[in-house]
């Protein structure tokens, strides 16, 4: 691993982000990344965060038209409430703050505690839980569906609404609509290695893959013999389409888990597109890249979001962040 010691990985990265992105205010000590100039008068602040290791999520999505602040925890470890309290205070213009929380026990508990504390300090807080991962089935007997690729859609679309000046309840309801209209499914071709463990988080022999993985290096629900890109696309598309049954064109995210070469990811996205078309799902917009990653895991995830006219408009709205930028 290209690190100094496991203990300083997050702080080292924050120093690097501060240097590369002068348009962000990076508080290395308190672990908050804030859009320079925040709070923005009259605009709702968007705060997200989670364990590190998913970059560019979330810090790479701070900027105009997306997040106002991000709180990175240790690798794969939810941030602590102090970070979100600090972020909320820094970005609240009086219009309130939306917490975008991926559905993991740790994230939920820490953001909940933060919301209570921030409200005590007079910040109006709304929360949206992202839980798009269809690989988690029997949610009665689990911690519920995980938040994965749809986080990007929620952050982008709610961020666009906030940028337009929508009030907190509207921004929150758009965020919830996006989450409810989104489904994801992920596949790993290799495990990832965390700095703390110093090696792969699970053993995945060459020639096998894991179906239905999350983004924390955990194995999936099922192990299979290696399949072709086209076969994997069929499995992933079946999983999301059967669960969502979209009736309108979708936004499509074909996301790399970190170590999948763009060359392969683009090829896979062509297969995903083919699989969607075969299932009569039309694709309005396609985004391909390593956006919601799992350190150096090889693999990919497919996320679709059924989009109405308004969501399409919000998708096309200007965004200017380190990792996602168009229209300005």
């Amino acid at each position, binding site marked *: 691993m290209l690190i100094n010691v*496991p203990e300083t990985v997050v702080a080292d990265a924050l120093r690097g982000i501060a240097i590369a992105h002068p348009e962000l205010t990076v508080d290395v000590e308190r672990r908050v990344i804030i859009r320079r100039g925040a709070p923005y008068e009259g605009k709702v602040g968007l705060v997200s965060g989670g*364990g590190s290791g998913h970059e560019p999520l979330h810090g790479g999505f701070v900027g105009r038209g997306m997040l106002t602040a991000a709180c990175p*925890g*240790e*690798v*794969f*470890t*939810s*941030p*602590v*409430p*102090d970070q979100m309290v600090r972020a909320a205070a820094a970005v609240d213009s009086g219009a309130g703050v939306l917490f975008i929380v991926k559905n*993991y*026990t*740790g994230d939920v*508990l*820490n953001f*909940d*505690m933060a919301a209570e504390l921030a409200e005590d300090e007079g910040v109006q807080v709304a929360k949206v839980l992202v839980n798009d991962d269809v*690989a*988690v*089935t*029997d949610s009665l*007997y*689990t*911690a519920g569906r*995980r938040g994965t690729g749809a986080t990007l859609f929620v952050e982008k679309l709610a961020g666009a609404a906030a940028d337009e000046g929508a009030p907190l309840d509207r921004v929150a309801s758009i965020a919830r609509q996006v989450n409810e209209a989104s489904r994801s499914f992920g596949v790993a071709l290799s495990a990832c290695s*965390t700095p*703390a*463990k110093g090696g792969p*988080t*699970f053993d995945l022999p060459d020639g096998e893959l894991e179906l239905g993985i*999350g983004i*924390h*290096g*955990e*194995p999936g*629900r099922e192990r299979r013999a290696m399949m072709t890109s086209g076969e994997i696309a069929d499995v992933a598309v079946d999983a999301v389409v059967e669960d969502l049954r979209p009736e309108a064109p979708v936004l499509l995210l074909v996301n790399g888990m970190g170590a999948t070469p763009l060359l392969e990811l683009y090829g896979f996205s062509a297969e995903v597109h083919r699989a969607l078309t075969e299932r009569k799902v039309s694709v309005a917009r396609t985004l391909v890249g390593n956006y919601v990653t799992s350190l150096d895991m090889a693999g990919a995830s497919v996320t679709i979001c059924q989009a109405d006219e308004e969501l399409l408009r919000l998708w096309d709205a200007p965004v200017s962040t380190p990792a996602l930028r168009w229209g300005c």
Partner: protein
Amino acid sequence: MNALPDAPVDASFLLRWLDTSATVLDREANRLTLLDSPIGDADHGTNMRRGFIAARTAVGQEPPDTPGGVLTAIGRHLISTVGGASGPLYGTLLRRAGKQLGDEPAVGAERLRDALRAGVDGVAQLGGAAAGDKTMLDALLPALDAMDTALAGGGSTTEVLDAAAKAAAEGAEATTPLRARKGRASYLGDRSIGHQDPGATSSALLVAALADTAREASA
């Protein structure tokens, strides 16, 4: 039943417990992280180590003078430094327990048991887990039950905590055949079977540290 005098659980007792816990978690961090690897995200050991070492430093700088004050302070620092699921859960456990003790300068095993019971109730409430869900509760609940039994039998603090430590360790081991229903491990469904729960394991270490502290105090 031995005849040693009963050590009072005061601020100093719990500060020594904190010190022992931090040392044990530092030593066992790799094992906990390895347990969190097949059915989790390989961070439980580093989370616990980070939190307890930070709490030892911070609480040691301005040590409260009541056992309730010490537990509340540790809980607060854990919440601010651990992160993950275990941070809020252990933080809540100790804060609730500390609150329950109020500002009494020293307590016996019974009051300690009551305080821990309140704390563990807080964990169940916050995390929504029940016995058998393959979580830290599967070490903590048996520990409380063992304390009940030992107290009913008139045991000393050391004996009560020894019984708790034994039950917690057994409870942690007994998580291996369970299918997880809470936390990250639950995503794996049946594949979570056959692995010991990391949180139950750290709970067992923390209860063992309590017993060790009592034994040393009465030695």
